[in-house]
């Protein structure tokens, strides 16, 4: 199906809501649906809404092998990151005031850490290796007696590299430090087993996985128990961790999206890998194109490419028929080139000539063929006019 819209190659910025998810969400909105407040305990409207919310909680928990009770609803991964980092720091501050994170984290993590620096906490920002992966000995070395929290992401939103959160969790657990992982880009895309991982807090977002925007969750481990200070007060919802009337339609949307991702995990993975590989095969023979981030240890749906010899703004205009990102979507508004690429040691000049392509469930092989043809033609054309 083709129309005049650009080919969507920006699934790591956001995804369309799966039509099956929309169907479910619609049943929780209006007079003919279960519109009740899940906190109403006196009538069936409330009971039915509450049942739906708990079903969704179990669906989200099932995808990552957690207990439903360990899932707290939030407004998105940004809020989850804030609740995890600021909430843990405020609860454990008597134990220590040192936090470890990484320079290539999402701004939701970095800015929450920056906020805590203003509150008297100290933050160590690890520098990843040039392939984007963190050297575990660097993590181990950064740990101090007063370290209370380590926050490191699973899949990086720009370069797609996968951090070894299993090994990291073993280190943090050995030192008795709370470990938070931002899994907004990995949930439903690469396997996550919280029975096996020694992760204490994990952030999720619905809209990166064919669910609605403005919806997320935070996993809070019960065994061993992790404690947080809430950021939002008023009514004591979500065991006091996140007050506010639950957004039933959003929650069931997230639940359904996670259930679908669970159910068709293998076929999604295979399709996305096939699209990404075809895209790369179409581009890899063009000279002066390099992949940023480790080539093997990366999410199957991401390509982060530096295209030498073409200025960044010209790249974007030349690829107008393609919807893609220069830096991460959240930072595209500013002209400063990607801090993630800069942390890998890529020059400002080359960082500017870098694009992120990300494919997803609804990408078609025909779209990939078309995208490859456009990119090949435009790269050739613009390089030919250069001195």
């Amino acid at each position: 199906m083709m129309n005049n819209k650009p080919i969507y190659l920006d699934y790591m910025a956001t995804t369309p809501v799966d039509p099956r998810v929309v169907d479910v969400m619609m049943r929780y909105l209006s007079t003919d649906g279960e519109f009740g407040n899940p906190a109403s305990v006196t009538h069936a409207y409330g009971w039915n809404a509450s049942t739906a919310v708990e079903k969704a909680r179990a669906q989200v928990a099932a995808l990552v092998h957690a207990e439903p009770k360990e899932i707290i609803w939030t407004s998105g991964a940004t809020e989850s990151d804030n609740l995890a980092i600021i909430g843990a720091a405020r609860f454990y501050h008597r134990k220590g005031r040192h936090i470890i994170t990484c320079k290539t984290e999402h701004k939701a993590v970095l800015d929450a850490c920056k906020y805590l620096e203003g509150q008297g906490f100290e933050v160590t920002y690890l520098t990843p290796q040039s392939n984007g992966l963190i050297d575990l000995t660097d993590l181990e070395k950064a740990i101090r007696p007063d370290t209370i929290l380590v926050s490191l992401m699973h899949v990086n939103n720009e370069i797609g590299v996968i951090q070894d959160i299993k090994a990291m969790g073993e280190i943090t657990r050995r030192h008795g430090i709370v470990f938070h992982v931002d899994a907004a880009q990995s949930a439903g895309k690469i396997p996550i087993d919280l029975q096996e991982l020694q992760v204490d807090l994990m952030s999720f977002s619905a809209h990166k996985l064919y669910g609605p925007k403005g919806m997320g969750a935070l996993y809070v481990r019960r065994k061993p128990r992790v404690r947080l200070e809430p950021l939002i007060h008023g009514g004591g919802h979500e065991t006091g961790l996140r007050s506010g009337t639950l957004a039933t339609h959003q929650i069931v949307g997230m639940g359904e999206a996670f259930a679908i991702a669970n159910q068709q995990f293998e076929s999604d993975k295979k399709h996305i890998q096939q699209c990404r590989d075809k895209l790369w095969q179409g581009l890899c023979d063009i000279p002066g194109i390099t992949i940023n981030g480790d080539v093997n240890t990366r999410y199957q749906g991401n390509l982060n490419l530096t295209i030498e010899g073409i200025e960044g703004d010209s790249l974007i205009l030349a690829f107008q028929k393609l919807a893609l990102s220069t830096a991460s979507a959240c930072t595209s508004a500013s002209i400063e080139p990607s801090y993630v690429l800069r942390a890998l040691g890529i020059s400002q000049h080359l960082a500017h000539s870098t694009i992120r392509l990300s494919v997803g469930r609804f990408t078609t092989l025909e779209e990939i063929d078309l995208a490859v043809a456009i990119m090949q033609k435009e790269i050739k054309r613009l390089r030919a006019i250069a001195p």
Partner: protein
Amino acid sequence: MKYSSLVIEHFNQPRNIGVLDASQSNVVVARRGQPDEGNVLHLYIEFDEQGFAQSSRIKVYGDPYVIAAASLATELIQNKTIDELQAVSYDYFVEQLDIPKTKWHSALLVEDAIKEACHAFKSLEVSYE
């Protein structure tokens, strides 16, 4: 970034791409910009015996405004005298192409290249005498 239709037209079909034989006595070349600053322009102009710019060619690397302004410049240059060329200013490109203030350096690069070419032509004339 939203571009005007004229920018997009010149960007997609830049005029007069190429080089001229700069070893010819009536051909000058100006080379401005640095790749790591984001813009490079090579501008070739051929003059006829009366001192009119006969034709011009460009090779250009940079953002869409530099490409469009350089392309537009090759149309402007045609049949101009040295004095007329020396009077070409970046605001012509800013106006024609709706270049935002943060990108005015792109237009300045083209003005500089034209001025450098004029200068080169004048030193050619001097050496004739």
